[in-house]
């Protein structure tokens, strides 16, 4: 199988973006999805429940040490960095903020890229800062597939624009096309 994981980074406007993409993925979608959504430090697990109610896949907050497996969408817990270990399990940390964020998209993307190499898909969606740009660049460098939401149609263009200027990304797609695109990729695996 070519791709073994999808990482998604999203900030301002994320709720709408995620609820557009994730429900289009079928229940037997083989690639696990791992998401950093910037949230306020005191947020609870509302987002996971909200998305889980609307998706065919299981949406849960990532716990440390669990094995990343298909059928699941993992969300980084608020106020923790989410990291991927070489053995494809999660770690969490409360190290300093990166790009003013914890969880930081770069932290997830960089560690996932080390663990999955060219078997990783990285996606940057709407957001008001530039977190994720460095991570997406790493993914590309290691031969992974990079996708960015088309900035002109994004709720907030800053983050996708930053990602595009940092990396020669593979695909720039409008929000509605990202889900179907992933399905097509997965079918051809």
């Amino acid at each position, binding site marked *: 199988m070519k791709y073994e994981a999808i990482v998604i980074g999203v900030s301002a406007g994320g709720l709408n973006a995620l609820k557009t993409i994730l429900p289009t993925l079928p229940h037997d979608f083989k690639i696990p999805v791992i998401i950093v959504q910037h949230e306020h430090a005191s947020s609870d697990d509302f987002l996971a429940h909200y998305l889980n109610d609307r998706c065919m896949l299981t949406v849960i907050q990532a716990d440390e040490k669990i094995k990343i497996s298909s059928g699941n969408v993992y969300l980084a817990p608020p106020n923790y960095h989410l990291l991927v270990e070489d053995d494809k399990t999660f770690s*969490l*940390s*409360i190290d300093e903020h990166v790009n003013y964020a914890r969880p930081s998209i770069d932290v997830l993307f960089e560690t996932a890229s*080390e663990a999955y190499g060219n078997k990783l898909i990285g996606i940057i969606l709407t957001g008001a800062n530039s977190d994720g740009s460095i991570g997406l660049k790493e993914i590309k460098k*290691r031969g992974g597939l990079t996708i960015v939401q088309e900035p002109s149609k994004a709720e907030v263009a800053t983050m996708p624009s930053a990602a595009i200027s940092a990396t020669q990304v593979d695909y720039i797609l409008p929000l509605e096309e990202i889900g179907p695109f992933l399905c097509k990729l997965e079918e051809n695996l």
Partner: protein
Amino acid sequence: MDENIENQNIEITLLLEAIYLKYGYDFRDYAKSSIKRRVMRFMSLSRTNTISEIQHKLIYDKDFFKRFLLDFSIHVTEMFRDPSFYKIIKEKVIPLLRPLPFIKIWHAGCSTGEEVYSMAILLKEENLYEKTRIYATDFNESVINKAKEGIYPLDKMKDYSYNYQKAGGTSDFELYYTSSYEFVLMKKFLKENIVFADHNLATDSIFGEMNMIICRNVLIYFNKNLQNKVIKLFRDSLCEGGFLCLGTKESLIFSKYVNEFEEFASKEKIYLYKGSHYR
């Protein structure tokens, strides 16, 4: 795997081995991904070019190692982190501690002390502080000294005050510190029953018989092997009916000792130690 990553991983393994052999600090069973991020960060801060160069310098230069250790051991914390945790302590744990003649609390991996002072404040407001001793430990001496000083940036106090209110604080948060310029100093009466000490969870042994052990957001940095070792240490240091408090995203589920504990507050990750007859 990418050859470059493979080489770096070898260098990191050797680095951790060198630290252990030379200085006795054991990071070999820490979760690899955050260790690696810290090493990489230290590499750019210390203007070294390779991990092997860090290793070489660490062995021959004690001060360089001290800098490295400091960077390794500060994990960002805050006062009344996860206010609901303190609220549950206040509402459910305190009533069970109140009848005890003397209360011993071990705060393991207390870092710069913010959460230790939070607990002292809570106990003060419950009129239990006078008969409590808090042992606040961390493996790094300079971090422990910072905790002992109790000096924190003034600009954090607004957030801390908000946490304090949400945690069910009954007084005025400003009564617990004095401020000067951009810093605040925690008041002396909060420090009276706190013993700050150097203790390394990875290499040191049992600490004493405790009524409550608080170790939040420390185990997430360890691999399963070290987690089990530390949980055993906690179990051996708790008296029957004692409490073990972990971080919100930590649990005993994967631990060998899960059956010896009972979930006391599941969301806040507070466990009750049932006693040695459950082994």
